[in-house]
Every structure is written in structure tokens, then in C-alpha cells.
């Protein structure tokens, strides 16, 4: 879906409702991935109730939001997961949900296969157990593969295999493609962001400039590989990649968290980017009237990128990637293809300790060993 320039300008000033609405159903998770965007683990006691969640779905349907992206945490952990999914699809609100697959046993796969307007993304972080489990925890790769086997056996149809591009997984692009082919699945690759717990691993795991260049070429040759518009910062390398190629935060994209807080995008769960709560006056009020979203719909400020000939292609990159690495929003993306972000980071290296941390942290509390003196 290549968009022309005038349409992109329209999108930058915002839409009547989001195109891409992500709703993290719960912060509860049975895994503890090192790069979790939402710092998930423990359920928040203030989580939206079933009735509140259904009312939100009704509002989403009324706003003619065509589909919602459900994530978490692990969304299938919620007891009312199927009830909510069915409530949405019965009103023709499609559901695309992200899961670690651990809850997709044979029975769940059969139930999922019977639902129309439902898409599933199963996450892995490597094409083999060693690589993937290093991030997602021991046994998680095998469980994800079992889920894929179960969906295939249940004739679910085409599901998606979703992979975050790290310094390790980016070396396995062809293996991921082969795995997707094996299942008749679609491959979806997304960018590692320094958001949530990702801030702790970003320095060590974000792709090198050379790896990003290879990824760009690989994606250009494969327009069918999905990216959720993740890699628009790489479009500065030449022809634009598939997608809108803009930061959609607060314009075409937003996030609702498990307790109803609305954030500008799934990668900025932080007070600075909080637009309001659906519990106050509903979601539509936040989308149309929040001060934060209005300011995000103003024309972007190219800042330090103003003299770069590629600003039109990359639009200065990802807001979240800048914010959580301690850069200003007017700085270049930390993974700027020309290295301007690395320079900006080096200039601020002294302040690394002052990087913003995610506001709500639902990570499981790890027991601390008590040492005797």
C-alpha cells in the first residue's frame, strides 16, 4: 500500500479514527522476554473488567475501526479472551492478536479456526530454540512451534510468524522465510525498540548499520513480508519500503493499555505520551480531543535533520527509539542509516544513566538473593 505524498500529508494531520489500534489486554504474561515493550509479567489489579472491555469494543465498532491488534502480556491468559474476541468479530471488528502460543493447544486451535475475521501472530525471536529462547525463555521456542503445528492441524489457514529483528535474528532471515513457507504462514518482521524492558537490551541487540542495510535490501525484494511499517527509518537508503512510511503515533496509530490508558503508540508506554484514559469519557474523546494527540498532528519539526536530503524519506525516524535512548525528538533516529544518530548518542553518552524508564513496570519481581555480611 504505497501512499503518495499528498495522502501522507493528510495522514500526518490525523484521521477520524485510528487505522491501527493496539490494545494490550493484560500485563499478565507467563513468559518474561528480555525485550518486552510493555514490561509485562504481573496482572494489573485495575485491568478493565469484561463489561468495560465490551463497552470499549462497542465504541470501537461505532467509530468504524476495522480491526484491532490485541496484545499484552499474553492476551490468552485473560479468562474472557474468547468472549471478547467473539464480541468484536460479531460486530465485524476484526481481531489480530499477538501471542507467544503457549495457550494454543489442540482444542484452542480448533476454536480459533472457527472464528472469522481473526488473525494470529505467533512470536519467536530466532529460527532455532537456542537463539529464540535466549530472549523469550527456555522452552518457549518449542511451545511456539507446537502452537503453529496445532493451528496447521486445525486448518486455521494463514497465520503470521512475528519476529523482532535483533543482531542475532537478523542473521536468520532466510531461515524465517523457510519456516513461514513450511507452515504456509506470512512472515512479519518488526523493529527492536528500546521500549519497556527493551531499553535494557537495546545497546547489545539492536542491529548494526551494516545489518540494517542488508535487511532493507532483503525487504525491498520481498514486498510480501509484513513489517507493520516498522522500518521506515531505513527508507532513507533509497526506494521507500512498503507502507505509509511515517510515524503514525497519535495520527493513525495508538495504544490502549490494560487499565484503559491511551498512549500515542505501542512503543511509548510512558507518562510523556499518555493521552488520557478510556474510563473517563470513552476512547473517541481521547482520540479527537487530547492535547497530546493534537500536538502530534502538527507538522513535524525536522530539527537536527533539516539539512539532510533524506528527511522526506525517513521523517527523522521513530519517536520512541529517540526518547528511550535519551535523545531529543528533534534528534536523528538512533539507527539513522547515515550514522547521524550514533553521533548524537555519543554526544550524549554521559547522560546514558538518565535515559527515561517506562512508567508502569509490570515485570515479575525477581527474588533478590540475600547475602550475609
Amino acid at each position, binding site marked *: *500500500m504505497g*501512499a503518495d505524498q499528498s*495522502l501522507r500529508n*493528510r495522514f500526518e494531520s490525523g*484521521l*477520524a*479514527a485510528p*487505522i491501527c489500534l493496539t490494545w494490550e489486554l493484560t500485563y499478565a504474561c507467563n513468559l518474561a522476554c528480555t525485550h518486552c515493550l510493555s514490561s509485562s509479567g504481573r496482572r494489573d489489579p485495575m485491568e478493565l473488567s469484561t463489561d468495560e472491555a465490551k463497552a470499549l469494543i462497542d465504541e470501537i465498532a461505532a467509530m*468504524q475501526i*476495522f*480491526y484491532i491488534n490485541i496484545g499484552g502480556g499474553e492476551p490468552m491468559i485473560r479468562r474472557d479472551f474468547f468472549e471478547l474476541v467473539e464480541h468484536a468479530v460479531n460486530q*465485524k471488528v*476484526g481481531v489480530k492478536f499477538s501471542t507467544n502460543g503457549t495457550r494454543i493447544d489442540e482444542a484452542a486451535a480448533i476454536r480459533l479456526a472457527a472464528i*472469522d*475475521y481473526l*488473525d494470529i501472530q505467533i512470536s519467536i525471536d530466532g529460527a532455532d530454540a537456542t537463539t529464540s529462547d535466549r530472549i523469550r525463555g527456555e522452552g518457549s521456542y518449542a511451545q511456539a512451534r507446537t502452537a503453529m503445528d496445532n493451528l496447521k492441524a486445525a486448518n486455521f489457514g494463514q497465520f503470521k510468524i512475528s519476529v523482532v529483528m535483533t543482531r542475532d535474528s537478523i542473521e536468520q532471515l532466510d531461515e524465517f522465510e523457510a519456516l513461514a513457507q513450511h507452515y504456509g504462514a506470512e512472515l512479519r518482521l518488526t523493529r527492536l525498540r528500546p521500549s519497556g524492558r527493551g531499553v535494557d537490551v537495546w545497546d547489545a541487540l539492536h542491529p548494526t548499520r551494516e545489518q540494517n542495510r542488508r535487511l532493507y535490501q532483503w525487504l525491498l525484494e520481498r514486498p510480501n513480508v509484513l513489517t507493520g511499517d516498522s522500518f521506515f527509518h531505513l527508507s532513507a537508503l533509497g526506494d521507500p519500503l512498503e507502507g505509509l512510511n511515517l510515524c503514525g503515533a497519535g495520527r493513525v496509530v495508538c495504544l490502549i493499555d490494560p487499565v484503559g490508558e491511551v498512549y500515542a503508540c505501542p512503543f511509548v508506554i510512558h507518562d510523556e505520551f499518555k493521552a488520557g484514559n478510556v474510563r473517563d469519557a470513552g476512547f473517541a474523546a481521547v482520540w479527537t480531543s487530547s492535547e497530546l494527540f493534537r500536538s502530534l498532528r502538527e507538522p513535524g519539526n525536522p530539527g537536527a535533520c533539516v539539512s539532510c536530503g533524506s528527511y522526506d524519506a525517513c521523517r527523522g525516524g521513530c519517536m520512541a527509539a529517540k526518547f528511550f535512548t535519551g535523545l531529543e525528538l528533534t534528534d536523528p533516529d538512533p539507527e539513522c542509516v547515515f550514522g547521524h544518530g550514533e553521533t548524537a548518542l555519543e554526544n550524549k553518552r554521559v547522560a546514558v544513566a538518565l535515559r527515561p524508564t517506562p512508567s508502569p513496570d509490570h515485570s515479575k519481581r525477581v527474588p533478590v538473593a540475600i547475602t550475609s555480611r
Partner: protein
Amino acid sequence: MALDFDASAPWKLSDQVSIRDEAFGALAYHHGNRRLVFLKSVELVALVRSLEGFTSADEAIDAVVPVGQHQRYVRALASLVKSEILNGR
């Protein structure tokens, strides 16, 4: 692309498609193939919605869009047929 599209035939919006109005025109989403399509003018939106009331696309275009833009809208409809937003009837 326009070759696959017969503007003298009757067409309609697919039952699988939802349309949401936007300032620039509208978004059209096909719930079956999951494609999101941009209808980039309010005239095109009006045309798409009116198709079912006419015996051919040509007739609808003449009734709805400004004179002199007939071919442009034939091309636009042809591309909507390709993405299954429109069906024959």
C-alpha cells in the same frame, strides 16, 4: 489494468467491505482479504456508494463525477475491482 474492467457492466460495493469517511475521502477495508484501500477523493466515495443504483459504471460516473474526468474514474474503479472492493452484479 483497466482491460479487466468492463465499465458498461453493473457493479457494486462488496458485502465484505466497510467504508469509513475521512477528510480526504474514505478508507475502505475488505474483511475477507484484509486489504485497506484509500479512496482519495470525496467524488470517488460518492461514486462507489452510488454504483448499485445504476445499470452500468459508465452511467454512474456520468451522473456523479465532473465532466471531463470520466476516464480517470474508470481507472480508479478498475483498481478497486482488482482489490476486490467492488464486485460485478
